[in-house]
């Protein structure tokens, strides 16, 4: 992309982001962080550029600095998406294990001595459908 991505236009600052560089979700997450000091408008221009317009919301906000911070925040959001893609399954597993009453990671340990879990009930042997031998 040629030229500065952060330009002043009519009392606002525009940040031009080539579409495809970051996901739409990453752009929106990064832009949301800017809403403390800025009013934000996001538009899509052809042939494939997202334009984020920042206007002063909090008096004294340095809009050019906010625009450059947005570019850094975009990099962080992209990194977060990489982490999420790599770790979401194991994150779900850890949280499930944390609150599960059975051992999801090592189910073979359930019922073992010291596991805190009761052993599974014995299955009836063939020919003893009413488990009469266990009474």
């Amino acid at each position, binding site marked *: 992309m040629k030229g500065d991505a952060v330009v002043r236009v009519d009392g606002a600052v525009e940040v031009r982001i080539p579409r495809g560089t970051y996901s739409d979700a990453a752009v929106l997450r990064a832009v949301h962080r800017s809403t403390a000091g800025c009013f934000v408008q996001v538009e899509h221009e052809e042939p494939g550029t997202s334009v984020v317009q920042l206007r002063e919301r909090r008096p004294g906000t340095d809009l050019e600095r906010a625009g450059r911070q947005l570019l850094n925040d975009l990099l*962080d959001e992209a990194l977060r998406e990489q*982490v999420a893609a*790599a770790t979401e399954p194991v994150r779900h*597993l850890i949280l499930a294990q*944390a609150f599960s009453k059975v051992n999801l990671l090592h189910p073979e340990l359930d019922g073992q001595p*010291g596991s805190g879990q009761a052993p599974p009930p014995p299955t009836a042997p063939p020919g003893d459908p009413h488990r009469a031998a266990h009474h």
Partner: protein
Amino acid sequence: MPDPATPDAITPRTTSHRTRAGLHSWFRPAAEFSPAAGGYRLLPLRLAPLDAERYVVTNLVGEHVLMPRPELVALVEGRIPPKGELYDTLVSRHFVLPPGSDVALDLLAAKYRTRNDHSEFTGLHLFVLTLRCDHTCPYCQVSRVSSDRAAFDMTQDTADRAIDLVFGSPSVNLKIEFQGGEPLLNFSLLRYVVERTEAQNAREGRLLQYVVTTNLANLTEEHLGFFRDHAVQVSTSLDGPRELHNANRPRPGGDAYGRTIEGIHRCREALGQDAVAALMTTTRRSLEQPEAIVDEYVAQGFRSVFLRWLSPYGHAVRSDRVVGYGVTEWSAFYERGLRRVIDLARSGHAIREEYAAIILRKMLTPFASGYVDLQSPAGLGLGAVVYNYDGDVYASDEARMLAEMGDRSLRLGTVRDSYERLFLDGRLESILDATMTEATPVCTDCAFEPFCGADPAFHRATQGDFVGHRPSSAFCERNMFVFRLLLRMLNDEPEARRILESWIQG
């Protein structure tokens, strides 16, 4: 099969369970613990800029590392070399799974469960015995009334119904805290509540404690005798040196500081050195004197000072010109005060800053803080409940303060409602839904989320809804300042680290 007579014994079932190395098969060979070339598995983590050079990276349970961005990118892309101090740190703090091991998953799950243990339901019960008060503090967060208006006292009937609700909580640990106004102005009801709950607890068998929050201006020998006989602890306000305290807390006669100090000494003589705690309120006048405030606490023999933020309720809002300040001003005050505390601790004084201690327990241990405003879900109703003088029941003290401003959105009901109606009919649950930081915009991605919490009353008061807008939230900005400050101290200042770590012991 293992011998059922010794259920906890780890015994091999048969000799085939022994490995060639002679270990039971439940133990892995030593070779599996050696770093293998590449191939570590990334574990869930969150990242946030710490300063211009570094990022703070946290895992699900708040363990952290600091690293420059190129190193962080290398971590995420699987390019950290499998040998060396950084790799060992990442393994030991559960940021990566080395090949052949999944121990970290169990450990993370256990720590996560520990941090999120809410099995002790509503342990703190606040009784607002009266709105009467003889002080006229500009930052008072409730609508105080003059001392002669008994219509603003809690009645015995209301207290009886509140006591029934106290014992409706399943919590083994129950703490009853008397508040106001000035609760000693309704001492007869305080006495009644203590005696009735003690009698009922003889049957219930809970661990019951009492605290009275008082300005001590009206303390008598009768009060002290009762507190001694019933193990009632005392919490008072001490805003700083004499001039600051008196300016913050006007009363007829203008001697609030003298009465407070005299009261503290009398309480300690009658009840013991540790039976009195003090809290300060930070006003605009306080901002230039953090060191003097800390020194005053040390001079008066306190081992803890809580450098608090003034919440925007009640008279504090109406007195904003006098007491109001922004996050930047408070942050500078807080850092100066914290450093003064650390300096005094280094020179041998037993003193700690309480907000830092609460956060450090979350940063350095797997345990929850128990602090209502730093929990997810928030501690409303779960940790504390307020029985107001008029019988209204609120989810927190801040909820009561919000109601004083005309917003009763955090009112749960009245003492005439059943326990089930107040806590289990869905109203409290819907409020708590809005306080799950794991699912709040910005918080869900925030590296500081394991240390933080939600303050729905604050966000309702300042931003109009329970969730709030995090990018412009003063609660968020203030807490992130403290988190960053503590992390820098822990990692960059060895002497400060030694002191800070000593504060997590309790």
